[in-house]
């Protein structure tokens, strides 16, 4: 028995090294999320109930959920499509130095978007924005009210600003994975460039495009700072509604914020899971 204890101690001793990190994750990540999920399915006395989720089915919240999904889908599609073409243009650029600078630019612009960037769009395209006024006074073109940076169309423009460079960063390695010989042999066998892309290039890029789209979708779905700075309470998005339930800027029925938070947590979680699974599959196929 003494020997067994010694052996199991040797086996488990290394795990002790993980204790500080695991304790931190439990305290600041896992337990809070569990408490949130439990709170969303219980009433003020702690009795199991789905009333909070029934409240979420009110038109205001359903619309905020729908707006978020729509905005995420539109900006992820635009980001994927534009990122595909711009990524290809960057990948094919002859000067390595310039190519690296463009990749670095994508890195910076996708990471540090947020409140300052949202404000930069107000500077150029706000109701008194530099470009808005330039168009109006020099070209006689009135952008407002057809377009507004504070509305849905403005949010799309500001979101694509951080979606597009993210897709560029995701797709360039995929282009690098397409071997030159494949294209050469296809062309030698009499295929046109168009046929090469349709039959060989695109099918090979498809998993990367799909996983990129999913990541972009999650990226937009969870965003808050850009929408808060631009639209404030003028537009209803899930993250904005959850934020209001914290700050109390808009009165909510209690528990609704928790239920909305769990719904968006599940949405984001599924996206991140799908992204990971797709990437695992791509990596194992590469081998």
């Amino acid at each position: 028995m003494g020997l067994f204890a010694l052996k199991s101690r040797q086996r488990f001793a290394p795990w002790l090294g993980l204790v500080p990190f695991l304790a931190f994750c439990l305290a600041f990540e896992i337990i809070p999320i569990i408490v949130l999920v439990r709170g969303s399915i219980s009433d003020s006395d702690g009795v199991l109930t789905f009333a909070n989720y029934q409240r979420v089915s009110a038109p205001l919240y359903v619309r905020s959920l729908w707006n978020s999904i729509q905005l995420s889908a539109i900006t992820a599609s635009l980001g994927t499509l534009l990122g595909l073409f711009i990524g290809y243009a960057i990948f094919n650029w002859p000067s390595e130095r310039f190519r690296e600078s463009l990749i670095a630019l994508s890195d910076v612009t996708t990471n540090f978007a947020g409140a300052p960037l949202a404000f930069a769009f107000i500077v150029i395209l706000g109701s008194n924005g530099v470009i808005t006024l330039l168009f109006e006074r020099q070209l006689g073109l009135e952008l407002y009210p057809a377009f507004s940076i504070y509305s849905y169309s403005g949010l799309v423009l500001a979101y694509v600003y951080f979606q597009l460079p993210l897709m560029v960063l995701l797709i360039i390695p995929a282009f690098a994975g397409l071997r030159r010989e494949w294209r050469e042999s296809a062309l030698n066998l009499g295929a046109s460039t168009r046929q090469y892309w349709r039959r060989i290039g695109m099918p090979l890029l498809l998993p990367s495009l799909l996983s990129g789209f999913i990541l972009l979708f999650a990226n937009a779905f969870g965003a808050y700072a850009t929408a808060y700075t631009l639209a404030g309470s003028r537009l209803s998005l899930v993250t904005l509604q959850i934020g209001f339930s914290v700050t109390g800027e808009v009165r909510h029925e209690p528990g609704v914020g928790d239920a909305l938070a769990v719904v968006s947590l599940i949405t984001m979680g599924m996206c991140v899971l799908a992204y990971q699974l797709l990437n695992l599959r791509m990596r194992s196929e590469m081998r």
Partner: protein
Amino acid sequence: MNQTARRPSPSGAAMIGLFLAYMLIPIAATYLFSVATKWDATILPEGFTTEWYVTAFNHAYFASSLTNSFIVSLSAVLIGLLLVVPTTYWVHARLTGAKPLLELLMILPFGIPTVVLALALIRVYSFPPLGRSPFLLIGAMIVFSMPFMYRPVSNSLAAINVRILTEAAYNLGASTFQVLGRVIAPNIMPGILSGSLLVFATVFAEFTLANLITGAGFKTFPVLLVEFTRRDGRVAAALAVISFTIAWIASLAILGIARRGKTTHETVRAR
């Protein structure tokens, strides 16, 4: 490229021109706007001034919010380093079986929207000294930023032979702390530096957690910036420029580290 000098295709050049315009015009315009006197019907401003910066500097909350942001960012970097580097090292050297668990825990923050993280933390820690305090904010910032620390550190560790270095140091009589501090850390310095800069820059720019957890009680720089976007656009532009500049400096430093790491790597290979 080992091909003969190619020229960029016209469509590629047009695409990249549009990309550059999209990425750079908002930022360049904000820099110009922050020093412009009047700019409402011309391509370039009619005159230049530093007035908006003076107003920003003299604002009651300017110095305190900048200090608060530095406190939060530096704390997140320091605690993040202490939490992530030894753990990642330990998993690489002694506990490779725990690698999937660590990877999972480092992906998890990406699946949690920042608003949800803020709400969850406020629900659990509603009592002093944590409730709505800078401490809770720092904790939240660490959760949100630890993948940025983990990725470069883990990549650096994978690039060196952790096990052999560790064994050798132990055989020479080093303690665990000596191994980590004197042997491993110097070897993964590029990863540690880029991770720290990335955490610093993302935490410094983070608005959501700061606005929801501490809000007006402990104003950070981005919170002050958003407040000004609704009050005085000129001053907001000056604050946005300061944010952009900090982000660019951090990014250029990260790039410099990556480039240096690559050249030393290549020279080693060339030998």
